[in-house]
């Protein structure tokens, strides 16, 4: 793009600041030198919550559980969802229309009923509740989000490019890997970060299917009786810093990918 100007970048910065406002407060209150029991009035600066960062084993365990569940459910749901999205946009088959509509159903189901009816299933099947059942549930609700996000990318996708590669002697797998995958990759990436966020933030469905397992949001809910305790702010800050660092570390990689072929012209212009 040759477009220049400061309005859009300035706007983007503002929106990001808006998104980060509560995070900034969270980081700040991890340094609050609380005197009483609660943590919503600023009372002075201290580093003591940081030095004892791993002193609460239950919190550390909860965070570990959440990271494990979010990672696995992201990988599985992104794979399964991307496959469905590809099927829905690249092929015409019987039942395609209803499948397209069906995908929205899990999104429309109220969380509590989804969580409760899933628990009912696990109890009936006598499956004991724990990390395993949380995973099954998270993958389930993430699939739809992945399908919808990836479809925004694959829509209007031109199959001829892949066909051309095949004509040039590429195996279907090679054609997919070298032509299709790079083109839809931004969609898959966006879907994956969305799935990760949904999983690590989920409360209601997890609550029902966790048994006595505790995840990060469950622990935080229990601990936040008198404001968020500083230990949680510290953990939240840690998650945030690690996430941002990872994102910035990916920047040099991005340059390499930028050299990959640009997207082909899309087939049709609506309207």
């Amino acid at each position, binding site marked *: 793009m040759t477009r220049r100007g400061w309005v859009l970048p300035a706007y983007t910065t503002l929106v990001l600041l808006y998104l980060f406002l509560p995070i900034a407060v969270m980081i700040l209150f991890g340094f609050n030198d609380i005197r*009483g029991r609660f943590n919503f009035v600023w009372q002075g600066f201290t580093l003591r919550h940081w030095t004892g960062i791993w002193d609460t084993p239950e919190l550390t365990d909860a965070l570990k559980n959440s990271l494990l569940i979010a990672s696995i459910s992201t990988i599985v749901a992104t794979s399964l969802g991307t496959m469905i999205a590809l099927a829905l946009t690249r092929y015409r088959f019987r039942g395609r229309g209803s499948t397209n509509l069906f995908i929205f159903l899990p999104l429309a189901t109220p969380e509590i009923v989804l969580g409760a009816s899933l628990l009912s299933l696990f109890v009936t099947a006598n499956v004991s509740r724990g990390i395993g059942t949380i995973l099954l549930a998270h993958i389930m609700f993430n699939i739809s989000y992945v399908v919808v996000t990836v479809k925004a990318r694959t829509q209007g996708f031109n199959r001829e490019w892949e066909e051309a590669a095949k004509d040039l002697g590429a195996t279907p797998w090679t054609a997919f890997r070298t032509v299709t995958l790079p083109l839809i990759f931004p969609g898959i990436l966006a879907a994956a970060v969305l799935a990760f966020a949904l999983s690590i933030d989920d409360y209601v469905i997890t609550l029902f299917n966790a048994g006595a397992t505790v995840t990060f949001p469950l622990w935080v809910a*229990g601990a936040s009786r008198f404001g968020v305790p500083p230990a949680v702010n510290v953990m939240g800050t840690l998650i945030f810093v690690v996430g941002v660092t990872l994102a910035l570390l990916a920047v040099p990689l991005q340059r390499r990918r930028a050299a990959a072929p640009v997207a082909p012209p899309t087939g049709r212009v609506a309207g």
Partner: protein
Amino acid sequence: MSDMDGLFGGLHRPVSRRELLRRAGRGSMYLGAMALLAACGVEAQRRQQGDRPEPLPDQPAGELVMANWPLYIDKGPTGSPTVKGFEEEFGVNMRYEVVINDNEEFFGTIREPLSAGQSTGWDIIVVTDWMIQKMNRLGYLERLHHEELSNFDANAAEKVQDPWYDPGNEHSIPWAAGITGIGYDVEAVGRDIVRFEDLFADDLAGRVGLFAEMRDTFGLALASMGIQEPDATVEDVEQAQQMLIAERGKVRGFYGNDYTDAMARGDLAAAMAWSGDIFALALDNPNLRFVIPEGGGMRWTDNMAIPVGAEHPLDAHLFMNFVYDPRIATNITKWVWYESPVAAVQEQIRQDVADKHETNVSCAPFCDDLAEDTFVFPTEETNAQTIPYKQLDEEEEQVWNDLFQQVVQG
């Protein structure tokens, strides 16, 4: 449909695979659409409770998982000294999780396994008196082995024994008790609050809060009308409901636990409150007061119980007995600031103040105040101002809930 009940109802212990297959075989006769639907559905709940308690294992399992409410046990730099002390003394690996924020939400998450007689994952749960009664009605609680609870028999205050919600303490023993009244910031309000109706003064509009919990809010509203909850009829409750609906416009919201941070931030000048919370909040804001309104406040007790299907019942008994040791109970109370069911605690705290006991860090610098606090250690006079909840049967509970729903949901 009776065979379908047989398929899912009446289970106590997890069924063996063969048993399950046999029942499923019987059920398969009904494999029509309706039967399929029924098979997936909520099964009949009621189970017959045996007269004798489930026998305990000979040896502790060395494992214990407990669910409790926030800020309800003493806390050191690396976890609860009480939990650590118990683990060392009995060689039990204990997981103490703070996951209960609301009686009904917690019940919602464990009901399904309980009704199937499966383990909920918890060995000890702590719920409020009326919830104990409800779970008992449904047969969801194990009978306790009082021969394993000698500290309870020796040290429990007389008034917590044989309570209205659990005769003979057959299924529960108290963890802590407290009072529902009104908390207010005397500077923000500009005067003292004495009656429940004072919350609805015009100059406080938009700065007062009520509880989202039906029992507490109806209880205080009824008391303000001169009716004690145990005597209340449906007509009385309807009248209380009308009063609340009429005043609703002045209320900021119906709060759960989060009323505390709204008070601390100053969004609420006055609100329904639990006694011990205001004691904690006053550490940072000395203008905060707690009062039992003129008509009376609600007296509640949170209780330990063992859910049916618990995997480590003997370990659970060991812990329940452990916290009835006066020394341990004192340590907990010094941190929690709610009433202890152990009679000797008040005297022990006075003693600790004199001895400069090491556990005084939990209440410093207010240990003196704590020892003489009439809400943590109710006097005869305080007790006379408090009202227990009414024992509701299922149908009544339904009616009250429906009436309350119209209050909180506009």
